[in-house]
């Protein structure tokens, strides 16, 4: 136990040994200096005059947004439908592609370790690239429109659904698998009758969760030209029509809340 003695010779209790204390001090020093260094880089690249002006700019922005132009909402129904389609079709396409990838990536169902690492690479690259970047790439390739948005959402969803699903597959109970293999079932039959029923609820829950996230993401894909309500948002911001922007924000807020509620209800019913 870390004990030091007082000048009178009485033992005193300490929380840490001297060594641990110094180590902790060094770690804090390192962390704080790193933070200050980063702060310095940011502050060098910032125009502080604009930052000092922020309060005035903010109140100006709010005053321009404030009576929202509600009649603009009538223009937004079609883009909103497009947004919902991007999210839903994108999720559907994504889970169709993620499904085999997850089975190839799970340790207990993969045919070969080499294929497993390939599947893991697919999952990681899909996960580390944001759907907006996917959309930017696809808009340059496919041209602006809903299709680019759908594929962007799908490509981003592969990683998410694939990762959670392969973790679910790795956690299945081995006894049904043994039982089915003992009947002389082929590999595919084992998957179909022993693995699939065990992961189906998790799979449905993950898909609903991803759909909910995709609704959020598809609202902004239009900023890079990939269709949906983001196109209107971009147009309104570029024409400085802030009273239309506030209408769009209200619509996005409402849609996200509703989709979150729906997804929570469905997941609750499944699990």
């Amino acid at each position, binding site marked *: 136990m870390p004990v030091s003695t007082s000048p009178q010779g009485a033992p005193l209790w300490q929380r840490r040994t001297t060594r641990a204390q110094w180590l902790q001090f060094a770690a804090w020093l390192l962390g704080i200096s*790193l*933070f200050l*260094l*980063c*702060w310095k*880089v*940011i*502050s060098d*690249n*910032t*125009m502080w*005059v*604009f*930052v000092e*002006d*922020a309060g005035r*700019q*903010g109140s100006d*922005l709010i005053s321009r947004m404030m009576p929202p132009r509600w009649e603009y909402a009538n223009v937004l129904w079609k883009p909103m*439908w*497009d947004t919902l*389609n991007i999210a*839903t*079709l994108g999720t559907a396409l994504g889970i169709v592609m993620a499904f085999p990838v997850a089975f190839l990536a799970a340790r207990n169902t993969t045919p070969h370790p080499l294929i497993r690492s390939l599947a893991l690479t697919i999952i*990681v*690259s899909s*996960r*580390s*690239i*944001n759907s*907006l*970047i996917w959309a*930017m*790439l696809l808009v*340059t*390739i*496919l*041209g602006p*429109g*809903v*299709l680019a948005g*759908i594929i962007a959402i799908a490509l981003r969803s592969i990683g998410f659904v694939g990762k959670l699903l392969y973790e679910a597959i790795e956690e299945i109970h081995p006894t049904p698998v043994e039982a089915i293999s003992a009947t002389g079932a082929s590999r595919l039959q084992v998957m179909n*009758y022993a693995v699939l*029923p065990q992961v*189906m609820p998790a799979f*449905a829950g993950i898909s609903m969760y991803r759909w909910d996230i995709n609704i*959020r*993401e598809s*609202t*902004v894909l239009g*900023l*890079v030209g990939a269709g949906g309500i983001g196109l209107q*948002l971009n147009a309104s*911001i570029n024409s400085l029509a802030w009273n239309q922007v506030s209408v769009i*924000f209200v619509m*996005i*807020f409402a849609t*996200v*809340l509703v989709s979150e509620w729906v997804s929570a209800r469905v997941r609750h019913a499944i699990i």
Partner: protein
Amino acid sequence: MSSTNSLARQQAAREGHWRRLPLIDNPRVRWGLVLGAMVYLVLALASVEVNWARVAEGAGRALNFLGAFLQPDFVSRQSDIIAGLLESLTMTLTSTVIGVLLAIPVGLGAARNISPLPIYAVCRAIIAVSRTFQEIIIAILFVVMFGFGPFAGMLTLAFATIGFMAKLLAEDIEDLDWRQVEAVRATGASWWQTMNHAIQPQVMPRLIGLSMYRLDINFRESSVIGIVGAGGIGATLNTSLSRYEYGTSAAILLIIIAIVLMSEYASSYVRRWTQ
């Protein structure tokens, strides 16, 4: 209903006709869902307009892009890439630190078992607003307010971090072991001492793990918010794509993937070490 159903299934199984249990018991709900999905699919696909001529034109570009991935060009825009990356990394670190520091009081306030109702309502409202809007929408507003550059980006990421961390921290505090809090309170501890000696030790490992995870997310997001002018590698990526310099874009994407991979390994290591 279900017992006669299962009896019929057993009877059929004895005769050699076995079918697996359906995922949804009620056949009406099951077929209704299938029908609804079909109708939606037809309506949705009908409303998707695809300009096939443009897609065919883009196919060549797709090949160019795949080719660029095989030969990424790290060199010709090296200084831009390095500057963007440095900005992204610094934004990630500062925003995570500031966001987590601000999220701790909000999270304490949003835990129903240790905070009074008015404070709880305010903190939950902060969390809801911060979580609903995408980072990029917040970035647009902050860029208008604070001007172009990494400062707006940092504030955006910090704001998004508050909602994420505070929600998870509050949930963690709500289901902690209450006996330890009672034990510390029974010694006559003040509010600060209770927080420090009963609650903090219980939530600390998870808090560290989540902060590492958020660091990872913030880096990923910092590669995007540059599109609307909030600094970071996103701006460089956007420029290279609109200039059709696919080699540079491929290099940037590969760097992003590599950094995310590294930070994922690092955070899983830290999480194992704290638990």
